[in-house]
């Protein structure tokens, strides 16, 4: 049965392809303002910054958003006079497509290094970021991570890697802390919390820190159910397990597509929860989520890093993004935007395009951020942003609003979220 084995091999190939996002060959980047645009306004130099994101494949929507966010930051910096300490040198964003694949991300990073970029921002997927951070370390240029939460990336002992977003450790802890605060304030303290998480490093990392903090605060945890985000197509069975366990809160750590399926299954099974509690969830705090699931998403919480919509600068960026790209800005784009500012501030302080000097400057700088958190971006010795912290969002009347803590709240949290 030669044919059977051919088909089996084909199935294996399909598995490999799809697990990597299956898309175009590398090389097609979008540096539309290459050569020729420099030399305006007396600037002597153009400094290249690399933007590495998944522009095709399964995460293309987020990747393109992030690349756009980085481009808006570069444009804004150039318009404001470029890097002053370097005679008004202009920045140029060189975009590359990682396709969401670690090996492509690595080779594209090497290509950008050869093109002479002075720093990198990226890359969304933790596995890709881990490879890119190795390239940056070897080339001695700073990598500013916008999105990638796996704790392990910064535990490699690299000195050129920095992360703007909170680590999964911080996200899980913050998520459990907010759950305790909000449920106790409502007089219905969370007692039994079921956990549904994607099985990769992101979901498991968030689960571990969430469980530790929740148990310390006296909550009972169980059942803990994991799933494969790439292939899952229905959550009815899992939600029935949650219902059978009589949990009063369901914590969910996952991505967009699976988040939508969870909401549909919760709506169908009706497990009698007080709340569905996303932690760093890729769906529950996106404007598309209530649009896609309708009433089924009403009342969903998400403790996540999020742009501070009470900040006028952030509102201006959201307007600019809508105007430029005809789409609603997502958190990832704002983080990429911030990451470019981190690099620019490093260049400004260093006064020259030298990887080591820019790295040293970044590690000492404080850079204002549009993301809600405990303060400006500043890095500890391993490169984590010490002021990164999640805030709590909830879907209310079909719109995602900030509800906790107080200083970021646009509305009061509604808990229990369901009648």
């Amino acid at each position, binding site marked *: 049965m030669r044919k059977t084995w051919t088909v089996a091999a084909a199935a294996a190939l399909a598995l490999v392809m799809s697990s990597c996002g299956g898309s175009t060959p590398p090389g097609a980047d979008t540096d539309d303002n290459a050569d020729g645009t420099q030399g305006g306004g007396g600037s002597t130099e153009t400094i290249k910054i690399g933007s590495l994101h998944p522009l095709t494949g399964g995460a293309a929507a987020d990747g393109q958003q992030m690349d756009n966010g980085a481009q808006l930051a570069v444009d804004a910096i150039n318009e404001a006079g470029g890097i002053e300490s370097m005679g008004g040198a202009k920045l140029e964003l060189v975009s590359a497509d990682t396709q969401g694949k670690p090996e492509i991300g690595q080779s594209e990073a090497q290509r950008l290094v050869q093109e002479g970029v002075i720093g990198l921002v990226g890359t969304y997927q933790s596995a890709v970021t881990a490879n890119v951070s190795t390239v940056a370390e070897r080339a001695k240029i700073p990598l500013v991570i916008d999105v990638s939460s796996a704790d392990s990336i910064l535990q490699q002992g690299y000195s050129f890697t920095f992360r703007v977003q909170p680590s999964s450790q911080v996200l899980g802890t913050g998520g459990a802390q907010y759950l305790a605060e909000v449920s106790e304030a409502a007089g219905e303290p969370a007692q039994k919390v079921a956990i549904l998480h994607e099985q990769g490093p992101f979901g498991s990392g968030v689960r571990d820190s969430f469980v530790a903090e929740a148990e310390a605060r006296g909550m009972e945890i169980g059942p803990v159910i994991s799933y494969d985000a790439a292939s899952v197509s229905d959550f009815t069975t899992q939600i029935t397990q949650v219902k059978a366990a009589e949990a009063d809160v369901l914590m969910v750590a996952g991505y967009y597509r699976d988040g939508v399926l969870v909401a549909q299954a919760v709506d169908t099974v009706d497990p009698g929860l007080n709340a569905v509690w996303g932690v760093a969830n890729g769906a529950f705090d996106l404007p598309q989520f209530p649009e*896609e699931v309708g009433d089924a998403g009403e009342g969903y919480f998400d403790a996540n890093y999020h742009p501070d919509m009470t900040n006028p600068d952030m509102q201006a960026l959201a307007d600019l993004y809508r105007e430029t790209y005809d789409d609603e800005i997502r958190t990832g784009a704002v983080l990429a935007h911030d990451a470019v500012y981190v690099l620019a501030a490093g260049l400004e302080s260093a006064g020259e395009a030298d990887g080591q000097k820019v790295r040293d400057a970044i590690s000492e700088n404080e850079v204002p951020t549009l993301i809600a958190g405990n303060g400006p971006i500043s890095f500890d010795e391993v490169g984590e942003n010490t002021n990164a912290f999640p805030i709590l969002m909830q879907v209310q009347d079909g719109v995602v609003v900030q509800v906790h803590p107080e200083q970021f709240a646009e509305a009061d949290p509604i808990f229990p979220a369901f009648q």
Partner: protein
Amino acid sequence: MTSQPMVADQETRTPTPSAWWARLPWLRIGIVLAAVVAAIVLAYLRSGSTVVVTQAVVTGILIGGVYGLVAMGLTLIFGVLDIVNFAHGSFLAIALFLSYYLVAGMGMHPYLALLIVLPAMFLLGALVQRFVLAGAMGKPLENQLLITLGISLVIENSLLLFFGANPRSVSLPGDQGVAILGAVAELSRILAFVGALVLAGLLFLLLRRTSLGTAIRAVAANDAGAQMVGIDTRWIYMLTFAIGTACAGAAGVLVAPLVTIEPVTGALFNIIAFVVVVLGGMGNVVGALLGGLVVGLAEQLGALLLPGQSPLLVVFIVFVLVLLLRPQGLFGRSGS
């Protein structure tokens, strides 16, 4: 240049109704059922909750129907044209986007979109076969495999280019939970399952009871022989590929309310569809449906049996076991 026929020839010679009924592989069906029952009992012992296990079985059967639905066109194309069609998932994605635009743009009922999507996909399939694949017919399997892989890349990235990567969705008016034996299921999933049954039935009738079906089976069994008795094999190739693509179209319309629509959505189903095709016996439409059910149940019960593992683990354990013990598929004919 064709490889040896995989369809046993007595099959095509005696299409009498009483004959196939008696020739059903009762023993194998019994073994599969016994395995399913054992898995259910184990899952019950493991989780200790009847409701959860019932829900897993109901969900598994419904999801299995969807998997079978997606795999039917694939298995048909493989059985007749010997093409491992990597573009099947991409055709499904086209159908999803078509349904989306018919529903969201023109306010059509999600299932009425069938009236437009089916003929459109049929035409697309015919064109692709005639102008892209026809030249590679009879060439080694790898040639067509690479061509269809190329087609899938072109389609996926064109969708990305023209429609962007933002997720879209189709919602079914009046979609709600329906109680079945203490478990629940969304109405849209039940309808997709029913659609899978209907489609399998229609294809079965087409292949067994019409002269076109007889011609298709003749080409599948031995294309040189079919040509000698006056069947226009090129025409049959084109028609079969078109029918297979139309099946992807039907699947697209039926699963549109269940999934988030993105350019890569179709590819998600590709792996499972290949597994289902092999399990069900290549070229066997009803086998694809049964293979789908096996995969759906393996996935759902597997998640209960081995918590913390990918549900696909159990699916692939079943897949590898079947490949080793019965390479022609659970419900394939015992050829050779």
